[in-house]
């Protein structure tokens, strides 16, 4: 499995910048609560969703937003070899939003016959790219890893209007097996066509076939996701465009990852 991740990294460094971000996830211990309570999370980067067998996910950029819009801090943060764990104390009724947003620049170039890659800020980029770099491509990256947990009645969710994100026809903490889910993908707050979406149910190691759904958003930015059975689902979406904010990059790579719990009827 590490081999596959290595391939992804290699592919990313060569031609497919959107592959970056595959397999990031935040896994809450509960998504539906009756009473204010503590929820614990695993955060990791793996191929098999929710099977922490590769690398921990850095949570420095984690932002936890309470139903009233205030921010809370994670506690009991544990940085393990295979996963990061943290707790969050949910004291209000409504939906808490957990998001790790990372923005940056990625440069790909060639030295001799070697592919090189560097990721970092603009200032760092200048220091790390040699003057004679060939085939230099600079990409702005915007990755969002999300999860939701609700105490009591789910709150209405409002998109941030930045980067790639989604608006769900059914609240993400209100999903039931067999009921349709339509997701509308937005880029910078506007419906985005052509977003590549992949949905995989967890516990892939207990079955032969991944059974992933590969979808692409229509003109309204919408995809219809099939959630036939209860369980934890991982959703990854990506889009590349040329709406760059700075002067260095020629492309922008957007990625979005969401954990969805589907309960039985």
């Amino acid at each position: 499995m590490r081999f596959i991740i290595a391939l992804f990294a290699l592919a990313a460094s060569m031609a497919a910048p959107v592959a970056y971000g595959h397999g990031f996830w935040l896994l809450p211990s509960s998504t539906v609560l009756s009473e204010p309570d503590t929820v614990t999370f695993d955060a990791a980067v793996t191929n098999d969703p929710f099977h922490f067998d590769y690398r921990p996910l850095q949570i420095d950029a984690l932002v936890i937003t309470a139903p009233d819009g205030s921010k809370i801090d994670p506690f009991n943060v544990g940085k393990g070899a295979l996963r990061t764990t943290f707790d969050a104390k949910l004291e209000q009724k409504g939906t808490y939003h957990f998001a790790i947003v990372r923005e940056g620049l990625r440069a790909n170039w060639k030295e001799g016959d070697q592919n090189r890659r560097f990721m970092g800020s603009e200032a760092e980029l200048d220091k790390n790219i040699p003057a004679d770099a060939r085939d230099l491509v600079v990409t702005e990256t915007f990755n969002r890893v999300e999860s939701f947990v609700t105490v009591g009645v789910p709150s209405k969710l409002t998109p941030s209007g930045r980067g790639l994100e989604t608006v769900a026809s059914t609240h993400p903490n209100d999903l039931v097996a067999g009921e349709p889910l339509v997701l509308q993908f937005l880029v910078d707050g506007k419906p985005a066509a052509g977003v590549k979406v992949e949905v995989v149910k967890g516990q892939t190691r207990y079955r032969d076939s991944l059974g992933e759904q590969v979808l692409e958003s229509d003109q309204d930015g919408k995809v219809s996701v099939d959630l036939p059975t209860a369980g934890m689902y991982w959703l990854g979406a990506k889009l590349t465009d040329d709406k760059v904010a700075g002067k260095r990059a020629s492309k922008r790579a957007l990625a979005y990852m969401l954990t969805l719990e589907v309960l039985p009827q």
Partner: protein
Amino acid sequence: MNKWALSVIPALLATVFSTQTNAAELEVKVNIPRLNAAEYHRPYVTIWLERPDQSMAATLAVLYSQETRGADKGTTWLKDIRQWWRKGGRALSMPMDGVSGATRPVGEHTFSFTAGQAPLGTLAAGDYRLVVETAREKGDRELVRIPFSWPARQAEALQVNGERELGAVLLNIKP
């Protein structure tokens, strides 16, 4: 007073009283079976009404653990009565007068609900389903439904049997 009047007065009185004492009623009997469990906890039970589109029309009863041990509250596990929780239980606040109560032991338990009074209230005419949903700590969850029409023209006795967590569930409708 003539004979005619004498014969009519009791009938009039009967009519007057019937509207007061014979309001339509739903009587629900829920049998909680004896289960062979290593560690048995009394089940959480909800009795509610749903419309044909599965939306909730009324919550009639919620039985949950009234114990509080430190930060552990019985209400923490109300979400495990999954359908009731999702369809409206989560919007209610417990305890709820005339609706919530303690969990019950093994045996038959009778609940009566009168039209015009909380929690049944005034139910619009139409098709409904009585839903009894149960969830037990370290045990299973079960849900049974009994369809009925409201208001009933005549007395009806309806029954459905649970398979694991519920025994016979009976619905007696008094018009």
